[in-house]
């Protein structure tokens, strides 16, 4: 075997007191598609940022084609032939496709840009995407999220990379675009490019990658050929425990109906959704990104206008607006903690009590002592780890932030919990705690409606699951009747969902 294209050895990176990477080894051959697997927070993104020059390692070494490699910044990495497509979209929305493609590598004479220098390459690269509507002169903000993702990939192609990193590239792509992407990746590998492919979806990884490395808690815990490794083995390496320990079950039984939704339609999404949620029940909603799941929850919480349909909470008709929903006992956990779910610059206490401050007021004056006592109690009950109730929410880890956001709903004592991606960006241990908590809520007679893109968690936690496809919600069926493959098929093709 020849010397590897890329070798990473003993990489360490700390952020303050927490170690994101504590000794990672990775080796990739030329022309290989290498899957980098791991849970959220395992350190994949940090590792790739170091490779792409956006972060420096505190210790460890990297070699590229045998030569020492330590990029001083993103530009140096790009010059060395390392290109990356980040998970979150990284385009300047006001600039055109072409301007974004050449951003940072513009050719110029005395500071004046010579756009013709890149023109031929830009057109060639865009053609390889098989999406004729992505023209060089269109401002990026006018493109769909999927098209933007493809523009990002084109940006990496333009750099003529030796190593191409794709970080969750299909999270906003449809089936056809995903297939094009796979073809593109295989063609690149055939030309000798090494591709590092980061993804949660194991089926997807098997379809495109040759070998894999698993990261867990900042360490590389396994590597090998995908063809010789079973899925359950991969999952065990990723989560560090057997699957059954991942989803602790708390016994609960459904009671009376509490949320009844009849042909609900929003302004754009959802197109049509009907279901009944009972007390003591956990109902899961699966589907692709953009299918309208979040919009359904938001419409139920009164954040999105309702065009048609009826919503009944208990025996009363739902009244518009989030303030009324909270009064009627419905709470929403937003999928976006940072922008929507929490006031990150405020304290744990402020965040926890925010929705129901009236309880602590006398004649409009807040009673600090009561508030402090309640905060301490709730932090204990949910296991929110913070230095003190005064610590800023933004300083907590993802898992603790999520528990804090959940604690607010519980503090408000809602009966119906609408949970949008409740474990996104949360470490494995906190995930198990959140699952346990959801089960315990159901056991206490609360009703939970849960949207998730992580199919194993829906299968492990929910009593019934319904799949959403292009804004239409299919029938809810017991979780035991579903398999991961069946859910993915329904989500992608709309099978079994009335048009």
């Amino acid at each position, binding site marked *: 075997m020849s010397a590897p294209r890329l070798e990473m050895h003993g990489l360490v990176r700390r952020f303050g007191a927490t170690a994101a990477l504590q000794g990672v080894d990775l080796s990739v051959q030329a022309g290989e598609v290498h899957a980098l697997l791991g849970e959220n927070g395992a350190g994949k993104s940090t590792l790739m940022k170091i490779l792409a020059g956006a972060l420096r390692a505190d210790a460890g070494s990297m070699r590229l084609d045998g030569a020492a490699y330590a990029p001083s910044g993103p*530009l140096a990495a790009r010059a060395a032939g390392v290109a990356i497509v980040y998970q979150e979209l990284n385009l300047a929305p006001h600039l055109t496709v072409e301007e974004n493609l050449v*951003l940072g590598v513009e050719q110029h004479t005395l*500071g*004046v*840009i010579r756009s013709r220098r890149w023109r031929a390459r830009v057109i060639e690269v865009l053609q390889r995407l098989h999406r004729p509507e992505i023209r060089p002169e269109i401002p990026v*903000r006018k493109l769909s999220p999927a098209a933007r993702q493809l523009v990002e990939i084109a940006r990496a192609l333009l750099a003529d990379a030796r190593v191409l990193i794709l970080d969750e590239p299909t999270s906003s792509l449809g089936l056809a675009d995903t297939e094009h992407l796979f073809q593109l990746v295989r063609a690149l590998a055939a030309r000798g490019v090494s591709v590092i492919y980061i993804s949660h979806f194991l089926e997807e990884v098997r379809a495109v990658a040759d070998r894999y490395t698993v990261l867990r808690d900042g360490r590389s815990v396994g590597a090998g050929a995908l063809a010789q490794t079973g899925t359950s083995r991969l999952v065990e390496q990723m989560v560090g425990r057997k699957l059954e320990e991942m989803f602790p079950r708390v016994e609960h039984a459904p009671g009376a109906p509490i949320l009844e939704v009849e042909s609900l339609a929003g302004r754009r999404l959802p197109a049509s959704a009907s279901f009944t949620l009972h007390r003591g029940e956990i109902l899961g909603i699966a589907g692709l990104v953009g299918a309208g799941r979040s919009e359904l929850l938001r419409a139920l919480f009164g954040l999105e206008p309702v065009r048609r349909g009826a919503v009944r909470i208990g025996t009363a008709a739902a009244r518009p607006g989030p303030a009324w929903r909270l009064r009627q006992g419905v709470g929403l956990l937003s999928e976006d903690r940072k922008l929507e779910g929490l006031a990150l610059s405020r304290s744990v206490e402020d965040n926890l009590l925010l929705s129901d401050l009236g309880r602590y007021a006398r004649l409009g004056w807040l009673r600090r002592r009561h508030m402090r006592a309640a905060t301490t109690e709730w932090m204990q009950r949910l296991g929110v780890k913070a230095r003190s109730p005064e610590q800023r929410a933004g300083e907590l880890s993802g898992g603790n932030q999520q528990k804090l956001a959940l604690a607010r709903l519980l503090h408000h004592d809602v009966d119906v919990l609408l949970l949008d991606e409740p474990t996104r960006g949360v470490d494995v241990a906190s995930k198990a705690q959140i699952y346990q908590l959801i089960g315990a809520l159901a056991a206490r007679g609360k009703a939970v409606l849960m949207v998730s893109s992580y199919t194993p968690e829906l299968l492990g936690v929910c009593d019934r699951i319904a799949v959403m496809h292009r804004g239409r919600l299919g029938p809810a069926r017991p979780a035991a009747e579903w398999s991961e493959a069946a859910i993915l098929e329904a989500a992608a093709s709309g099978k079994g969902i009335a048009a």
Partner: protein
Amino acid sequence: MRRLLRLLEPFLGLLLVVAFFYAIPPHLGVSLTDLRTMLVQTVIVGIAAFGMTLVIVSGGIDLSVGSAIALSSVAAAMVLRAGHSVWLALPVALVTGAACGLYNGLLITLLRLPPFIATLGTLGFYRGAAKWISGSVPVNAPTHGLEHWVRPAPDPPWLVFAPGVWLMLGLAVLLAGVLRYTILGRHALAIGSNEATARLSGIRVPRTKVLIYALAGLLTGLAGVMQFARLTQGDPTVAIGLELDVIAAVVIGGGSLSGGQGSMAGTLAGAFLMAYLRNRCTALGWPNYVQEMIVGHIIILAVALDQWRIRRQER
């Protein structure tokens, strides 16, 4: 048709205002003399607003322009009073303005201050500096013909408009080119559109920002020279509150305060719109406070329009 409309978008406000004053009695038209006066009144705000456009498209703001204009006009006056020629006074004023901008840029990037706060601080600092070096009194100095730059009726007459107006128009073309066709301009737009992206693309964001503020300062210095030419003295208390007119010119011209969007043509139209409005109100004999109330709401309208545009795009 759609394309034409988009091209005209920055000028729509101006067209509406012109139409408004033509529509109401006594149906004021615009004579050449009027136009000359209005254009001359546009010069100071216009030139400073070109710099502000660069700053605003990169997601920043500069509240210190009014003070910096006063400081550089005082600097120019003091050089002239000491018996030196225009050819020393002009560079001194430009360097003064550029230094102000450079300082703003360094505060924002090195101390990581929000531009609003950094330039709010230097607003007071530059004003104080202007009063300090002038001894808090206007500096009278020989003008060496500088005042002809902003006389509505130019000498020689074949110029049609004052040299200062031509200078402003020339700068508009040049800077529109800078914004569109240079690395600096492209990177300014990228930073204003999405700073994280710019950083990940290897753009040296702090250096670019400092450059933008320094270049804007250079233009502010030039506006200071025009201010001196207009008053024929260096007054340390001139141009108080002018930053609001300058920012308004950019915003009315389609510049977005959240960055990523703006054009020199639009800014020019915005600056001219305000001069036009003031001139018409005076011609109609409307008192000063009416002008202020109208200008205030034009700014509100322009920003509301910008917000509406952003929301529409997000759908």
